């Protein structure tokens, strides 16, 4: 037993006060009798020693009991009472993998899991605690609370949806142990369809009860869809279909190119087999959609969409008088749209994704990506004048990623400017200690500096030059968007450095705005199947819009057959009622109720006892 407010025990000092009051009250009590005729016949007895003796009576007992209960309640005692208000702490793991969307008997498996969890929440009593955890592609805490939070928990439960391929059971168990490991009698209930390999449960630290909700059901799915551009604009499409079930499947597939029907073919699939299909389509094409007439309980994975190319167009402005080798190298990149501008007529263009300055430098750091080649002395990049460069080239650790396998050795760099870069520009390559290639980021500018002349034929005639150009351009600009995503896989989206916010538009048209910081990628977690659009905004200016499809079909989720049965692992058997752990319960309310009952008893006793009774 613990006392939350031990000072409350001072109230027990009322006990001796009550005893003293009873002693005083019992000392002399005036009582009228009809006559003293008989009383006077009694032999007087000494009374001094008896006045101090306390005569126990029911009233005194009730007084002391009431005062004790109230005083003890003020100390706020807590006591573990197994029969009164014991706590049951339970973590409910809800499998939110794609296969839980399969409908059986009119209800999806996830709906049944939600109903079971809701029933459990409604049956909570007292200080029972529950932790709701989603065991989807990434385990996450849904909500947690006690019986008083039942309404909130039920509302959170209603928001649980299928999250994608895979079920991170181990992560969910880790979350459950985080919240419940220190609570005696805690347990974990895993509501799943069993359509996944049984995870390693040998190191469980909490009793686990597995409730398998699914049964053996057939399913047809598009598990893989890929497309790429070929020669002469042709588009090559590859698809893999799966038929999980005991029955052969005969159906049709429909191929759409940019939302126009291109193919409509019949397919025959034997039980528990996969069918691979390939098409070569005339281009150009941006997006391919494949639809399978699966006729099963899981229509979510009967269609897939893929982008032919995830590359985003890069608008490059080349500010140079004459840099043919560089221009050729840029034009060799399919995503680059090159514009050449005379340095004297250069005006910053907001539509430019990359601006390349050759033998010149801007007056300020422009927003966006910049590549400055062979900069003359200026305000942004001051130098101490040209210096003969050696043939020894040294890569710094920061330049390893960009310059790996780019053979720049043995090139006579000529005279290069000994520039004094600002601190945020990091040398990637040095020639005898003089920075040759620099890379840095300043506010909303991605900056790369080549401190050598691209008119040097010793460089431009080597294979390393276009490779260096391509790597630098792609390093300065955001990476391409994925051609397709599996539902549940988060997308780490690197926006343009100028972007201040992203607007994510889901397949239903709902918009979500995400504030972004320069060069810090944002994480987008698609929750639906379909095509997502992402708009990059720099203030009110739309910089770019990209889109990526999200598909539910996955090899691991296509087979909805349960692979294990309901079981209890750990201390709690399935059919045995869970032992309710005796957690400390506050007793003050019960003590106050008992005190009120005692006071009522006192009142009744006083009302009903004879008026002359002195007991």
């Amino acid at each position, binding site marked *: 037993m613990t006392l939350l407010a031990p000072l409350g025990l001072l109230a027990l000092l009322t006990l001796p006060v009550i005893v003293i009051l009873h002693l005083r009250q019992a000392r002399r009590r005036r*009582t009228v*009798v009809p*006559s003293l005729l008989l009383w006077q016949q009694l032999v007087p007895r000494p*009374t001094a020693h008896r006045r101090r003796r306390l005569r126990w009576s029911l009233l005194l007992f009730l007084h002391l009991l009431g005062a004790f209960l109230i005083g003890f309640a003020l100390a706020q005692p807590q006591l573990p009472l197994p029969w009164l208000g014991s706590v049951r702490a339970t973590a409910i793991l809800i499998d939110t993998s794609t296969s839980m969307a399969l409908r059986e008997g009119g209800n999806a498996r996830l709906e049944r899991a939600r109903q079971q969890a809701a029933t459990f929440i409604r049956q909570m009593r007292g200080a029972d605690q529950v932790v709701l955890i989603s065991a989807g592609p990434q385990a996450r805490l849904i909500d947690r609370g006690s019986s008083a939070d039942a309404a909130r928990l039920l509302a959170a439960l209603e928001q649980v949806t299928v999250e994608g391929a895979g079920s991170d059971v181990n992560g969910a168990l880790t979350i459950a142990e985080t919240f419940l490991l220190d609570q005696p009698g805690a347990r974990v209930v895993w509501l799943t369809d069993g359509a996944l390999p049984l995870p390693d449960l040998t190191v469980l630290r909490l009793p686990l009860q597995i409730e398998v909700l699914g049964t053996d059901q057939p399913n047809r799915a598009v598990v893989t869809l890929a497309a790429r551009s070929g020669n002469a604009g042709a588009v090559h499409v590859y698809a893999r279909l799966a038929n999980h079930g005991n029955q052969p499947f005969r159906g049709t597939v429909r191929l759409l190119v940019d939302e126009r029907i291109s193919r409509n073919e019949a397919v025959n699939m034997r039980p528990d087999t996969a069918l691979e299909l390939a098409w070569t389509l005339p281009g150009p094409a941006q997006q391919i959609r494949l639809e399978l007439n699966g006729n099963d309980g899981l229509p979510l994975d009967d269609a897939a969409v893929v982008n032919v190319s995830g590359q985003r167009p890069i608008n490059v402005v080349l500010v140079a008088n004459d840099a043919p080798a560089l221009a050729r190298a840029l034009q060799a990149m399919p995503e680059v749209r090159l514009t050449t501008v005379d340095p004297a007529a250069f005006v910053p263009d907001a539509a430019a994704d990359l601006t390349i300055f050759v033998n010149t430098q801007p007056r300020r750091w422009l927003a966006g990506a910049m590549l400055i080649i062979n900069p003359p002395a200026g305000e942004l990049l001051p130098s101490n004048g040209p210096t003969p460069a050696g043939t020894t080239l040294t890569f710094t650790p920061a330049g390893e990623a960009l310059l790996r396998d780019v053979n720049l050795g043995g090139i006579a760099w000529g005279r290069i400017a000994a520039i004094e870069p600002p601190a945020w520009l990091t040398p990637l390559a040095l020639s005898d200690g003089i920075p040759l290639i620099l890379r840095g980021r300043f506010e909303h500018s991605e900056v790369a500096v080549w401190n050598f002349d691209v008119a040097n034929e010793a460089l431009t005639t080597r294979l390393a030059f276009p490779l260096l150009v391509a790597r630098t351009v792609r390093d300065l600009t955001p990476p391409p968007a994925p051609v397709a995503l599996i539902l549940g896989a988060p997308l780490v989206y690197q926006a343009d450095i100028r972007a201040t916010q992203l607007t994510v538009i889901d397949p239903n048209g709902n918009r979500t705005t995400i504030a972004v910081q320069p060069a810090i990628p944002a994480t987008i977690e698609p929750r639906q199947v379909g095509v997502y659009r992402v708009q990059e905004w720099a203030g009110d200016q739309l910089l770019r819009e990209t889109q990526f499809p999200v598909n539910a079909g996955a090899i691991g989720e296509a087979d909805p057959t349960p692979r294990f049965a309901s079981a209890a692992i750990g201390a709690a058997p399935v059919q045995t009622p869970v032992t309710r752990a005796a957690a400390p319960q506050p007793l003050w309310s019960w003590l106050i109720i008992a005190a009120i009952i005692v006071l009522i008893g006192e009142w009744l006793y006083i009302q009903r006892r004879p008026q002359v009774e002195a007991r």
Partner: protein
Amino acid sequence: MWFATIFRRKPAVVEPPLFDEAFLRRLERLSLQAQRTLRGTPTVGQHPSRQQMPAIIFNDHRPYVHGDDPRYLDWHAYARQEHLLVRLGEIEQEVAVSMIVDTSRSMATGEPARLRLALQLAGAIGYLALAHGDQVTVLASGQTGPVFGPVRGKALAVSLFRHLRALAPGHQTDLAQATQQVVQRRPQGGLVLVISDLLTPMPIETIAQYLPAPRWQVLVLHLLSQAELEPTLYGSLELVDSETGEQLVIDLDDETLAAYRAAAHAWRSAIAQRCTARGMAYAPVMVNWPLERQIIPFLRVRRFLG
């Protein structure tokens, strides 16, 4: 409204009547058992007496004297003995019933109070006497004159009840004064009913001093309460005498209470013995006994009533 009645004057507590009419009709079937030795007025009343007079129904003879009514001559005796004999028979008489009601403060203490039972007993016996033609007088201890009477006649029963209900406690027990008044008003004797708690020193001796047998037939109804015989008091107390205001500090424990109960039993036994020794009839009546179902049958057993 809930507060509409908080200033309303509460109705006065109405004292219920002493009896109901049905009880009085049932009571008329009884009669007071008066002794033959009492001297009452002959030819009226219904109590037997020791006096004999010429009568049709006879149990004795006496010689005829001049002036006797010839209708009472026993001609059959004359035929056998040739002497004129007059037939003598017993006559009935009325009895003077005096009731001394103790109205001291001690009669008003306790629950229920003894005074109401005393008034009920006085009313019942007074009504019985009036109904049978007896002369009834009611005296209260501590008052100089009679409260009611002496009167005869059943029609005055209502007046009797009214006077009884008007009695209020407020005096000390003074049986001597009341008995003196009885003697002064009817020196030839009669039936005296004493209704009291007898919580006064030597009450029986006082009564016997003024009302000796056989001229006076004294019936003592001793009203006792359970709280008096078996008190529930306990602890250190300051006892106050209800009549005198005298105080007594006492510590009541089991031992003391046992001694008190023994003293009360001895006191009650002594009163009974003294009554018997002085020719008085004694009947202890518990104050919580119901009048008709327990006290009246008890008085019949004790031959107070016939």
